[in-house]
């Protein structure tokens, strides 16, 4: 099966969604996860747009969760990584690994 090519930020969003898991992955938690793990500041607007694109590509699907347990609490849009999404992540990992081979001596500090 042919999988889509992923952009760097798309890959990060997919990885964060997989890490967080099905019932907890939504825009805010994904943004927090990426910030926590990469130390990189990002804006949530970028996450929304990326999720929209990934959904259009069929790599993820979204559904509305339960309303938040508070007064006026609104439902979250939860993210589920589809098999195509997992395949795309795998393919990206293989590509990276193959590209990594032999670069250790160059990249490692002496």
């Amino acid at each position, binding site marked *: 099966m042919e999988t889509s090519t992923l952009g760097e930020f798309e890959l990060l969003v997919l990885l964060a969604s997989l890490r967080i898991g099905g019932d907890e992955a*939504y825009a*805010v938690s994904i943004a927090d996860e990426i910030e926590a793990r990469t130390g990189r500041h990002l*804006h949530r607007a*970028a996450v929304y*747009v990326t999720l929209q694109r990934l959904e259009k590509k069929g790599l993820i699907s979204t559904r509305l969760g339960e309303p*938040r347990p508070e007064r*006026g609490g*609104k*439902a979250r849009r939860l993210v589920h990584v589809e098999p195509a999404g997992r395949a795309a992540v795998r393919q990206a990992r293989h590509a990276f690994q193959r590209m990594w081979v032999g670069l250790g001596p160059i990249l490692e500090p002496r």
Partner: protein
Amino acid sequence: MTAPRLARWLIRLAAPAGQAHELVGDLEEVHRRRAAGGPAAAWCATVADAFVIAVVASIERLRTRPRAATWVHVGDLRLGLRIMRREPIVTVTGTAALALGMGLLTVAVATVDTLLFSRLPFEGGDRFVLVSVLHEVERRPVRLTPDAYALIAARTTALEHLGAASQNLQNLTLPSGVVADAVAAGITPSSLRFLPYRPVRGRLLTSADAAPGAAPVVMIRDAFWQRAFGGADEALGATIEIGGIPRIIVGIMPDDFKFPSRPPDFWTPIGEGFLEGRGELPVNARLFGILAPGHSIESAQSQLAALSAQVTPVSEPGQPARLAAASVTDLGPQAPVMASAILLVAIAILAVVAANVANLVLARSYGRSRELAVRTALGASRARLIGQITVEVLVLCSVAAVLGALGGQAVLRQFNAMDDLPFWVDFTAGPRTLVLVIGGVLLATTIAGAWPAFRVTRRNLAGVLQSGGGYGEGVRFGRVAGASVVTQIAVSVVMLHGALVVADGVAKYAGRSLDLPANVLTTGLRFNTGVTAGGSLESPDFEQIERIASALPGVVAAGLTTALPRHSPPAAQVEVEPLPGEPARAPQPAPWAEVSPGYFGALGAHAVSGRLFADRDTRPNVHPVAIVNVPFVRTFLEGAYPVGRRFRTIDADGPGAWREIVGVVPDLGLSVGDPSLAAGYYVPFDPGAGAPRFIYLAARVTGDPLAHVAPLRQAVYQHDPTIVLTWPQPLEDVNGEDRAFFLWFSTALTGLGIVTLILALTGVYAMMALIVTRRTREIGIRIALGATSRRVAGTIVGRAAWQVALGGLAGGVLAVLSLDLRGVLVSRLPDGGPWTLPLVICLLVLAGLAATSFPLRRALRVRPSDAMRVE
């Protein structure tokens, strides 16, 4: 804790369909976290957050929107043209109004373009810089001592060259011996090397030609060569007399050489000694410089400013002068302000016109509800329908733009035909004009097309079909449309009223009979002091000129004045000395003029009371006297016997000397047009007052006044060749240009007012027609139930009548208020008569009746049986 309302609103505005709720939820969650750091900081951060999300989401939406081709079709253009043909009222009214707006925009943009971006139209023209030499405080031009010019030339390294140029009217003796006036220019010969023009015959002027003692020479322009010499080669080397000095023609310049301002007929050399501290700069010559490579106007300006303290005006020894550099084509600091104002007014007028057309389009689009509903049922999206209506209006706007641009070009041609325009001024619509007119088309299309399209497609069009509703079912003219109709009626009342006031003023100004003899020749007398070899500043012998004119065959009487009839000279504040026991009166304005003893005779005027001026009144140190006109006696003396009474003028320096009234003359049109300034007075001509005044000669002649121009010119030339007769014309033509301008202005304003009124009333008509159709069933039922025609008519006309009344009232108030503003543009026109506003209101009522009568007749003819079939 909820997120700030502004943030939620931003998210809802821009979020993808169906996702706003969750995004706001996320926003609130993050906001709660932030609240721990302080509410104000959290508020700012969340609003900023929401703003970024809204912007990014909007960009994404735009990026992924369906391609324009899916909602704008070429077929819509054909449909637009078909609909224009099918609905002639909308087409003609809308196109005429928009064309006027577009024409105005074209003229405004081209004018602004000329005001702000004119450049000298030759290679290196942008290096030419005007060097102003001004009085430090009064900012009037002054002349410097010769060594000052040498200092400027030596120290201003930002200028590669310093030169001088002059331009004026001079007398010229043609080879036939006839004396004519010609546009004369002077130039420092060394400046010619910076002007990329070469003679078609002969040679350029050289510095040697300008040296003291050199033979006087001249270069003539090709057109003048053809006119005066028929293009004969013998012209080179021939002698012509200019201002009394015989000069040899050494070169013929091409017609496109027009430096320094108005296209001159010839150029004489200006001596360059002043640049080395020798000799004087002619009185009317202006300095200019050529920027050195790598230098800008700013660097020249700063060098000149630094020199200001070291140079001295020749008239005020010891005082500094003010030196400044500016582009030759620079019109001063007011130009950008004026340009912006012109542009804004034109855009505002176009927007108002487009808003008017929007109403028509709205009514028409509601009338097409069925068609739009069918298209929706067949799968057309809302964007597609909006696109269709907008393209139809785009067609209308484009046709109007073409017509408007053509009309604008015609007006610009008139501008270009004006006399006295500098050669670099070209009122031609260029690429910038084209771009802005296209912008105007888009603006008008958005207002007149997109807005009604959004409005009409906002309704549930499918519901129109489901309910079986007919034409206009479920339609309401909203508050915006209603306000637009009221506004346009108000605007049209203001415009029509303004037009009538101006037209009335023009009639009073231009058409007023002054009861003066028809056979009076008038001419300005221009003194070219300072441009002759001597450069004399002495006053010419005015009395001798009057005597020469009077002695000419066919001249009955001649006299001099500083203001001819219809010239409307400035008014002075006049206070009349009260008689013993009378209370003092407040000073009032009264225009005045200096006149020689022969002036009243030249106008065929006799003293109504007292006497006219005599020679003794003009002698120095005599008792000041004045002659007043009949309105003066009425206004200042309440009809009392005036001779022997005294008055004085009051200015900023305080009251002047008392003047005794020695006579009264009829109203000779000292200030025509403004009845409040009809009262005026004359004082004896002061021959020693110096040259820089406008002096006019009036001569009553036998036969055609213009037949006496040549002999008069010849006689005056023989007396003093430096005196030039300017604008010789019959008395009845004095200020003809002003009158023509007022007539044009009034016609244009009337046209605009009438078009706006028609547009407004077409809007009323469209609204009424739609209301009648929409309420056909209701009207039928009411008639079946026994309602009288009057009641039915009242219901139908009610809203339109309110709109017309409200618009008329607002327009009336604005019209009265705007009379004060009128003074800014046409200060010399009088107030309109009391009939103008009632006339406009009557016109409005009549037009309103006409606009409502047809739909009303249709409403009253509704038969109940027909009405029931509508559903």
